[in-house]
């Protein structure tokens, strides 16, 4: 039996749908007869080319697995459906990898399965990540026709040399074409992803990228500072001294300029790395930051569901096998162990409190003291007496209007706070919890 241990209790590999509790303490909308809300994440791990900085669960050269992958996703939906039908799905997010590589036929199959297995809200926000490299007008129209209504495109830079450094395959011109095609196909809600703080990138170069992207007038912009992640090709080049490390001070200058420029352009910053026009925040990502429940499906997908954090197996072939086995067992016996779940945890209260702060403080609105107290029976100040005072002292956190939030300086130094919010010692590994609450179908 394998189990991933990350704090809180260890959750064993053996998970069955009918041993999950029937209520979710983290779900909003509980009570009043209204169904609680749920976000769905679907992971597509395939890429035509793996980018040098990317440490996500994505693979190039595994296209031969695609024909089995879509059916496996459909089966995983069927496996979760009994537990998830009590929820109303308000957001769907296809992430990757490169979900825009999945054919429209397969996408239609997945869309039908989603509608068959889950209760999808009429006003669902349905996002899909797209790579401009191979994005056609026809494909975009197909996506729109099956219900995808929000497109998130990985642009990263509008300079060819920077795109080359990042090992992106597209050109700035291709971005312009793809954005135009998406608009023509009817996408009225678009996000563009950008990366700043590139190695050797002066402030002006970043300014040029952002200015050009603002001309596309996207509804939403995500601007991430380049992180050199262990295990990536970029990390190798930096650790061997082939490339210098990114300069954090330049990145800080770029970030501060970005905040001012975006405000001037009419965008509201609602999270450390995210800006939106009024009413265009990403509802799906807000679910993560509000620590509300989400169900992840696909290779390496993560869930926070009925109080558990679960992680699917990363390798796409093993994922397909595990789902198929579970599905067959389900057909034969009516119940199934969820073999694709490779590990997870039931976070203890201290971990949940830390998570709520670490996620909530990423939002510019911060954490509501009253809501935190209602959920955990203590205020943030009671839960983290030293850390809050310490970081108020450094000018990284402030209190205003009943909320705790990052200061302008704190936005760039959030980790310094988060480190002090972590529980001192993860709870000692105890016996595996055996949920005894009634089955979801009861």
């Amino acid at each position, binding site marked *: 039996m394998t189990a991933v241990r990350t704090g809180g209790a260890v959750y064993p590999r053996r998970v069955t749908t009918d041993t999950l509790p029937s209520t979710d303490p983290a779900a909003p909308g509980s009570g009043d007869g209204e169904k609680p809300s749920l976000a769905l*994440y679907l992971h597509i791990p395939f890429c035509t080319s793996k980018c040098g900085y990317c440490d996500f669960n994505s693979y190039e050269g595994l296209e031969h697995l695609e024909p089995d992958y879509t059916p496996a996703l459909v089966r995983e939906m069927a496996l979760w459906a009994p537990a998830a039908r009590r929820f109303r799905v308000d957001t769907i997010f296809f*992430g990757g990898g490169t979900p825009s590589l999945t054919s429209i036929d397969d996408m239609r199959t997945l869309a039908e399965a989603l509608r068959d297995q889950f209760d999808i809200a009429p006003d669902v926000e349905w996002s899909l990540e797209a790579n401009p490299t191979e994005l056609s007008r026809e494909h975009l129209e197909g996506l729109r026709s099956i219900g995808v209504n929000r497109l998130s495109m990985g642009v990263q830079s509008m300079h060819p040399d920077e795109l080359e450094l990042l090992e992106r395959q597209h050109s700035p011109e291709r971005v312009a074409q793809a954005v135009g095609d998406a608009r023509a196909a009817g996408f009225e809600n678009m996000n563009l992803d950008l990366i700043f703080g590139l190695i050797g990138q002066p402030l002006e170069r970043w300014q040029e990228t952002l200015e050009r992207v603002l001309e596309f007038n996207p509804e939403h912009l995500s601007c991430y500072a*380049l992180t050199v992640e262990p295990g990536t090709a970029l990390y190798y080049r930096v650790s061997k001294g082939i490339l210098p490390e990114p300069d954090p001070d330049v990145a800080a200058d770029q970030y501060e300029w970005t905040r001012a420029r975006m405000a001037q352009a009419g965008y509201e910053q609602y999270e450390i*790395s995210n800006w939106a026009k009024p009413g265009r925040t990403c509802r799906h990502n807000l679910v993560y930051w509000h620590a509300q429940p989400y169900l992840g499906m696909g290779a390496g997908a*993560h869930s926070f569901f009925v109080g558990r954090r679960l992680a699917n197996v990363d390798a796409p072939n093993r994922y397909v096998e595990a789902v198929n086995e579970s599905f067959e067992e389900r057909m034969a016996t009516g119940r199934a162990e969820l073999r694709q779940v490779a590990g997870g945890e039931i976070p203890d209260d201290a971990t949940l409190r830390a*998570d709520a702060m670490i*996620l909530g403080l990423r939002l510019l609105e911060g954490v509501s003291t009253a809501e935190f107290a209602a959920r955990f029976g203590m205020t943030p100040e009671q839960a983290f007496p030293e850390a809050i005072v310490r970081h108020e002292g450094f000018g990284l956190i402030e209190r205003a209007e009943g909320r705790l939030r990052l200061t302008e300086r704190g936005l760039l*130094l959030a*980790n310094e706070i988060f480190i002090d919010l972590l529980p001192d010692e993860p709870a000692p590994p105890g016996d595996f919890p055996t949920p005894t609450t009634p089955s979801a179908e009861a």
Partner: protein
Amino acid sequence: MDDQSHIRNFSIIAHIDHGKSTLADRMIEATGAVEAREMREQLLDSMDLEREKGITIKAQAVRMDFTAADGQQYQLNLIDTPGHVDFGYEVSRALAACEGAILVVDATQGIQAQTLANVYLALDLDLLLIPVVNKVDLPSAEPERVSKEIQDVIGFNEDEVLYASGKSGIGIQEILQAVVDRVPPPRGDREAPLRAMVFDSKFDVFKGVMAYVRVFDGEVTHNSRLRLMQSATRFEPVELGFFTPALRKTDRLTAGEVGYIATGLKGVSESRVGDTITLDQGGATEPLGGYNPAKAMVFAGIYPTDPDDYTDLREALEKLTLNDAALQWEPETSAALGFGFRCGFLGLLHMEIIQERLEREFDLDLIATAPSVEYEVVRTSGETITIDSPAELPPSNEVEEIREPWVHVSITVPARYIGAVMGLVDERRGEFEKMEYLDHAEEEGDSRVLAAYRLPLSEILVEFYDHLKSRTSGFAAMDYQMEGYRPARVSRLDILVNGEPVDALSAIVPTADAPAQGRKLVSALKELIPRQMFDVPIQAAIGGKIVARETVKAMRKNVLAKCYGGDVSRKRKLLEKQKAGKKRMKMLGAVEVPQEAFMAVLKVHD
């Protein structure tokens, strides 16, 4: 054995890697003194593994029975010597227990500085030397050239030099026969009161300290009441014996013989190398000469990173002291580092070994301060004190004179590097003493040179050996011996972090060089101290006057850009990692400082 004429006691002198152990193994095999495999089985039958570890792994003297060309049987005692420069005194006592020594020189490398130092030591002790050129069967061997070198440098005749290969067994019989023929037998007085010299001692959990001895006069029996003459410690032996190398109990050891006495004593400091064991009643009146207990020459503070580990550190030091009489320590308190110990070591290598054993064998996380030598300070009041820590240096207006230890350093190196060596010695306040050619190669630059210098000990403590190696492409070998104290012009360099003096970062440096060292130290610290939430000034001061300043600028950015697909636990792991990194830091006021910063002084020569 009743007859000293059939005993030969000898050592092997060799540079590291010149093949001493292999040669010794071959001799043990050749004399039929138990095959290695058989030996292990025998040991496992007769005792548990722990005893085996306590004793035989550290067997320092092996008795071999050898039938010589004259058909008679001889008792050959091979006494091992410690292998590195910090243990010069231990080497001298092991050699003093012998009448002869085999000088092993690698046929591919020639004589090295350390070998030569031990040769001179052996000659001073009137040992007979048998030169052996080893590894003659290697393709790159130059036996004739190396033989010539040995003849020229030490003064042997051509026919005295033997040729051997420990690997294939060539020449082993000849060496053993030469030991019988050339090494003089012991000439002790069997009727005189017992005098046995301790040449090594090891702690054994079952039998207490095992003293390895050479009996010079008289005899010791298992029921003798004994006394160590220098430490004035009394004991009754638990057991007597010798090594074959398996442990062999015996009833008595008599003049000329080598063996062990299990003393039942609790720590090796009571049975120091060089001490003389005699009978408690009617014993000898004069101890054997040459007692000069190992003296610490290098001092450093050792502190637990986690103050809660203080007791564990004390226990670990106590345990190490059981087996290492040269390790000194006493409690010390630092304003910056809290409670720890001031430790004294024989040299830098000894310090490294101890630190590594503390961390590895006792699983301790330690901070070591920069090493210091022992200074003699004459106060204006006329009083002389010795100090081994910068913190103890009195204010300059109370100091009449400061004296520091100097050492003789001998270096062997190909002639073409002599300029590089000279440059290094000059930078370190060294003086040239003499230089001689060990051989004359076709290319002048290939000829090997023995150069002798005098340097302040403090100058060779810090990165001297590493720099010597790198400037000579790894060819140089060195050895050093204490010379004595000389007046020094030195000052204390203080370091202030965020305006607060940090005692653990102070150093004693040459006055003339102090501002420059201050600048280097401060810039090294700037690289070692991570950025904090606020600007951290780092200053160097001499006598309260700031001579250098750098600022570690406040950190501006430390944020995870993206939360990937709701993987909260992974994000938490990244934060846990940062947190663990911080936990290993030491808080100096509000400043987090990593362990390495306390060794920053090692960087001033870079």
